[in-house]
């Protein structure tokens, strides 16, 4: 039998197609697939996931996409729905042109883009869809303290001039809404389900928590979006990460993210858009989902997404730029249709058991180098060639020996902040740990809220007092020591427990040694002076 023949029922539905010499048959529901033996049999729905393509329910062989029944091929993922909805043009022989709903801008990756516009005599096509803030360079000392770094000050001034010249809304240093761009977008209701969102920053993946397609771009693409409100994009592949079960007490969205990256590697999702699904993801708050999606880029993903649900809708409702009146009702109707259709096909599926996760600590110089807090720095001998070399270089930089217990690693600094973990829920969790304790005398610890709004909210709840009484510094909002573009940096050799997203060499300051952890784990490390398992913590 040729591989292209198909059996069509009288009503037009697909009954079976051949695949090589065997027969692929599908039940009417098309949720169970057989490629041999059971031609036309009606079977209970039982779709097998766990691979690039569905497998034959009988012999477990992969079934090629083109041989899937038509109604399975048209089932679309969340990503595909948003992608299709934003296609402006698909010119012959060229990559598709995608419309961008929201373009977030900050001071570091935009000045050359605005220069490009000026040089070409172009305008910003959609100033209302473009929103700017300053975050990377801003000092976290009390506002009004002069910026002593003149090059940084110049970059901030350039953004102020550019926003004025091109008519762009700017949440400036002195604004009550200033904050990390990936914190204020959601906070102001700018970030909404179903949108395409870009920013000249890799952690734009954060916004995918709302069921939007959000990804980081370079400065040339920033210029492209400013000029055209569009991007030329090759269509990424899709990956579903299904997290079964529930996260245990003390195991947070950050640990889930680190656990995933530890499993699939820092290039495990390159070329893919991840959709996080499963009960453990559904149970996360919006803050938790943002933490999870934020770290997608650390697995190499183009973007990370969570399908919108009631949690999402409740978060967006009433925020400043959220839809209002009839627009709200229409928007919610659209959002409810966004989740991936049953039977939608992902290019890759990864399954994670939440019960297997624990609080994690990174030991090396990329976010995939993780160990359970109860574990040890790994032995490098058993590793594969290039991994072993990378691990040896990492341990040399981190000044750690294989076999050392993670809980015995002492620290000098603690940073609670960044677009990964600086939201109100993060600060509440850290404050709960800090309450009634004192920061270890060998440790300098700082808390940097993600935005001015979070800072105000935390102060209303009295969190700042808990931190200050425990000996933490309570600072102004910004990216701060996540990347150390402002004065908040590690000194050479200092070791830091950080709630940020990257432990690359020198990331937080030349010669600095970064260990990535959750906010609770960071607060506990500040008090103990070394890493400690939060599950055994004595809360006051």
């Amino acid at each position, binding site marked *: 039998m040729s591989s292209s023949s198909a059996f069509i029922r009288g009503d037009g539905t697909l009954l079976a197609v051949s695949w090589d010499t065997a027969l692929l048959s599908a039940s009417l529901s098309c949720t169970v697939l057989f490629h041999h033996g059971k031609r036309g049999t009606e079977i209970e729905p039982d779709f097998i996931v766990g691979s690039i393509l569905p497998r034959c329910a009988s012999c477990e062989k992969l079934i090629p996409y083109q041989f899937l029944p038509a109604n399975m091929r048209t089932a679309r993922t969340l990503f595909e729905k948003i992608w299709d909805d934003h296609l402006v043009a698909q010119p012959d022989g060229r990559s598709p042109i995608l419309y961008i709903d929201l373009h977030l801008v900050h001071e570091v990756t935009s000045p050359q883009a605005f*220069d490009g516009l000026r040089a070409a005599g172009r305008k910003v096509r*959609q100033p209302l869809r473009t929103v700017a803030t300053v975050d*990377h360079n801003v000092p976290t000392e009390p506002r009004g303290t002069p910026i002593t770094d003149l090059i940084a000050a110049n970059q901030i001034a350039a953004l102020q001039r550019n926003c004025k010249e091109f008519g762009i809304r700017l949440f400036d240093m002195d604004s009550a809404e200033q904050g990390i761009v990936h914190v204020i977008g959601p906070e102001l209701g700018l970030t909404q389900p179903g949108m395409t969102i870009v920013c*000249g920053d890799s952690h734009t993946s954060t916004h995918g928590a709302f069921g939007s397609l959000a990804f980081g771009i370079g400065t040339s693409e920033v210029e492209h979006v400013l*000029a055209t409100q569009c991007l030329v994009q090759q269509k990424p592949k899709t990956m579903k990460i299904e997290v079964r079960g529930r996260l245990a007490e003390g195991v947070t969205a950050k640990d889930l993210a680190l656990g995933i990256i530890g499993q699939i590697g820092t290039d495990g999702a390159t070329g893919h858009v991840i959709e996080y699904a499963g009960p453990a993801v559904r149970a996360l708050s919006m803050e938790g989902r943002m933490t999870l999606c934020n770290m997608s880029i650390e697995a*190499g993903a183009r973007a990370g997404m969570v399908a919108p649900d009631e949690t999402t809708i409740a978060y967006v409702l009433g925020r400043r730029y959220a839809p209002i009146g009839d627009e709200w009702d229409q928007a919610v109707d659209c959002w409810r249709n966004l989740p991936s259709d049953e039977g939608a096909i992902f290019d890759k599926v990864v399954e994670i058991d939440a019960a297997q996760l624990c609080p994690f600590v990174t030991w090396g110089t*990329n976010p995939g180098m993780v160990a359970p807090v109860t574990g040890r720095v790994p032995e490098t001998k058993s590793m594969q060639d290039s991994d072993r070399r*990378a691990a040896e270089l990492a341990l040399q930089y981190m000044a750690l020996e294989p076999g050392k217990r993670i809980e015995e690693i002492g620290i000098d600094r603690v940073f609670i902040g960044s677009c990964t973990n600086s939201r109100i829920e993060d600060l509440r969790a850290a404050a709960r740990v800090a309450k009634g304790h004192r920061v270890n005398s060998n440790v300098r610890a700082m808390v940097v809220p993600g935005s001015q709004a979070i800072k105000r909210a935390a102060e209303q709840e009295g969190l700042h007092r808990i931190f200050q009484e425990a000996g933490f510094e309570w600072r102004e909002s910004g990216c701060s020591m996540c990347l150390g573009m402002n004065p908040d940096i590690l000194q050479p050799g200092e070791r830091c427990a950080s709630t940020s997203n990257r432990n690359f060499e020198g990331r937080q300051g030349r010669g600095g040694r970064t260990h990535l952890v959750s906010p609770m784990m960071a607060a506990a490390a500040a008090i103990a002076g070394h890493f400690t398992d939060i599950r055994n913590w004595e809360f006051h």
Partner: protein
Amino acid sequence: MKPFTVHRGRVAPLDRVNVDTDQIIPKQFLKRIEKTGFGQFVFYDWRFGADGKKNPDFILHEPRYEGASILVAGKNFGCGSSREHAVWALADFGFRAVISSSFADIFANNSTKNGFLTVKLTDAEVATVVRRAQEIDDYELTIDLEQSEVQDDQGFRASFPVDPFVRHCLLNGLDDIGLTLQHEAEIAVFEAQHPVSEALRTA
């Protein structure tokens, strides 16, 4: 954009995996508002000690790799931050291309906008190039974008994948903003169907 057609040049081996953009161009150099002059800062923390003195052991400071215009490195090159400064720094330093077995998406995208080529070969092919660059004096490669092929004078030859549209733009040095603006009518239709929300217009 400077077109990329055929390039022949000396190869420098950076035998590390996961070379992130924080290493390619450390953050303290991202505060400049120009696009030029970043070459002096490329791989800064590896090239220079904390005292600002040249690290003679770093590969790019070995005399035999001086003037190299092709870098070959381990998998997942350019991971991390989206900073296009990484591409600007490599290009300004004198590189025209990087060879690796995989590239981070944003870095690869940024490269195409700057006439800079990311050449993706298999792990075994990358290992061959690294070894030859280490063992053979004045080792050179020719990268032919039209043919999507690299070859040396010692008989090594490999092809690499490249999106046809990206190749077209690189070969001709095209500005893709101009190309997108040719679709003005379609963009306008899309915008008419998707107006800016009331909240963005008024709040």
